[in-house]
């Protein structure tokens, strides 16, 4: 016990004091935030300036109606709309040319003929901005509908009432998780990525540290004082404690986002009033860490160099990548049968069950069952890993084959 404690202390202090720890604590959330939230934010707030476009219609009322829609202050983008009343398709070339010359950002071809042929077109330099396309489509539809209704003799004031859309707010069962769908998706994705990256990062850190002790032959010195089992336990707990420290810092940071004014209202809404979210982050991290890092430790013990380790680590990393591939599906339908069963698989649960906790309100028995399954699996994995570890750390030279590793399991 004393020896294990000494190893834990060494691993913890050596790591927490290192620059790498401080840097990764700050950079990882920034990085994950960067790859998940930022692109969508950027898409949403298109360069700040207004979008200069031309609406081409056969009659002024249609153009007016569309212009009015686009320029309405409710819109999330700013538009500067010019009208052009024409039916002549020759004019399109002229417009194409001005788009190309960047005199205008785009135009909407909405002549009566085009509407009748179902061939209304929005032409712009860049058409990958989904929000933009959606805005133009909505504006065109509303504008045309408005004109049609008025042509049928409905008063302008009545038209507004008639076409007013119904706002639907999405609430999960517990009624606590409202907020934008997009924000919810990205928040779930963000926490999934954070668990995923930290599991890989700390798993590999365990592997590298085993490998380092092996190649530097400190192992030989350590084993003259300490049992392999104590050493491995110390390493797992020590590195795990470092990871937990980091995850705790992130959890506090997230809690701050939840209550603080730093975040956008959507994110704030999502993170606030959800103590479970912060409690389960360390819980699932610890469970996932124990499961994966014991496999990484065994891997580190069987190889002789970093290169060899890289060749074989897919073996351990694979089951971690699967849930990341599936995560968007689970976020979209957190309570579907598929999601429930996937989140029960012990190797996926650290990511997928946690995502379900964030995205939805899974029943307690499901959370409990997935944790129980993880514990049982971890127990067996640790048992097997410690046997491989015990033999592997003393083996130098040729990398053992799988049958040889299986044979190690039988050694007393």
């Amino acid at each position: 016990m004393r020896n294990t404690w000494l190893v834990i202390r060494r691993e913890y202090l050596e790591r927490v004091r290192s620059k790498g720890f401080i840097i990764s604590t700050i950079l990882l959330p920034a990085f994950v935030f960067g790859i998940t939230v930022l692109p969508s934010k950027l898409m949403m707030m298109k360069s700040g300036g207004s979008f200069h476009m031309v609406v081409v219609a056969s009659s002024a009322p249609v153009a007016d109606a569309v212009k009015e829609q686009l320029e309405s202050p409710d819109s999330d983008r700013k538009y500067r709309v010019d009208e052009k009343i024409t039916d002549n398709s020759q004019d399109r070339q002229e417009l194409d040319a001005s788009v190309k010359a960047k005199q205008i950002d785009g135009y909407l071809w909405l002549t009566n003929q085009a509407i009748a042929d179902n061939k209304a077109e929005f032409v712009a330099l860049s058409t990958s901005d989904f929000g933009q396309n959606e805005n133009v489509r909505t504006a065109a539809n509303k504008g045309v509908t408005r004109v049609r209704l008025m042509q049928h003799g409905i008063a302008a004031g009545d038209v507004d009432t008639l076409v007013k859309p119904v706002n639907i707010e999405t609430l999960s069962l517990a009624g606590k998780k409202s907020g934008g769908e997009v924000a919810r998706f990205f928040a779930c994705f963000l926490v999934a990525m954070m668990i995923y990256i930290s599991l890989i990062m700390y798993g590999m850190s365990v592997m590298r540290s085993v490998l380092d002790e092996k190649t530097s032959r400190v192992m030989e010195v350590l084993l003259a004082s300490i049992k392999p089992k104590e050493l491995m336990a110390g390493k797992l707990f020590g590195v795990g404690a470092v990871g937990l420290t980091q995850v705790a810092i992130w959890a506090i940071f997230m809690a701050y986002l939840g209550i603080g004014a730093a975040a956008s209202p959507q994110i704030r809404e999502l993170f606030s009033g959800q103590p479970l979210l912060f409690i389960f982050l360390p819980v699932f991290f610890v469970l996932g860490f124990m499961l994966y890092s014991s496999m990484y430790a065994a891997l580190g013990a069987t190889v002789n160099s970093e290169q060899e380790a890289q060749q074989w680590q897919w073996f351990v990393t694979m089951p971690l990548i699967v849930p990341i591939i599936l995560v968007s599906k689970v976020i979209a339908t957190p309570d579907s049968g598929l999601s429930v069963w996937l989140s029960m698989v012990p190797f996926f649960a650290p990511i997928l069950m946690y995502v379900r906790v964030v995205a939805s309100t899974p029943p307690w028995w499901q959370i409990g069952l997935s944790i129980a399954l993880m514990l049982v699996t971890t127990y067996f994995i640790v048992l097997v890993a410690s046997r491989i570890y015990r033999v592997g750390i003393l083996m130098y030279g040729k990398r053992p084959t799988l049958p040889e590793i299986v044979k190690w399991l039988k050694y007393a």
Partner: protein
Amino acid sequence: MATTLELRNVSKSYDKFVAVDNLSFAIEKGSVFGLLGPNGAGKTSSLRMMIGITMPDTGQVMVFGENFRREHLQRIGYLPEERGLYKKMKLIDQVIFLAQLKGVSEPEARSRAMKWFDRLQLTAWINKKTEELSKGMQQKVQFIAGILHDPEFLILDEPFSGLDPANADELKNILIEQRKAGKTILFSTHRMDQVEKLCDSICLIDHGRAVLQGELREVKSRFGRNHVQIEYEGDGDFLQTAPAVQSFHNFGNYTEVELKPGADAQELLKAVTARARVNRFEIAEPSLEKIFIDTVNNKQQNEKVQHA
């Protein structure tokens, strides 16, 4: 006399490879014991069983007069052949950590470490990391790590490798001090000169078996005073075929010949002076080096001599 370590018919195999084969020897308390043998003879495998890294398949390892228990490890110091230190850890933290694993308290380990670092002229380096050190310095730190818990029994695998003559001499003095203080020392080495200077007893193993063992003096006398060491300038090739010579080894600086039974050394001296300028001519017991080579009778003799 109490024995510090005793191997009784110890064998250890890895799959089909027999690393140690029915090996028995005993080391008396307070003595210096040399475990010799060519590369791959089973030295490291034997050492590992003495410190419980591996267990013998058959036979017994007795330490301090008892069956080996892990508790004994706190009284044993081990210096592995390959440097084993954390590359990125500060020296002082490193040796304290290793001493703590041996049951020494942190403040005690720190104060002892400061004394040792001072003695081995490493005080300026205590806050440096291992990777910043030269090999010789690392070897010294490794030695400190092995001895910081003041063990009664020191197991040193090639302790002199990588040390310059001054440091090797310092290490030798420390070992002599330790011995005077009643500590038992086992070292395994290829450096026969160090063995001759330090060891009371030796065991030479080859292919996992003991091929020669006993008190150093007794072992040497077994081979009789029929050896001549000659230092000369000039061509000495004729010695190989000289009638009085049984066997011949050129060690570079000097040549050692074994006389045929009944041959007269004086005749040989005359023959040599006739052809070369003799600086030294000494009738002696065979050197341990010679004994080693003859006993192991290895094909790679010459390579070994160069290493020695």
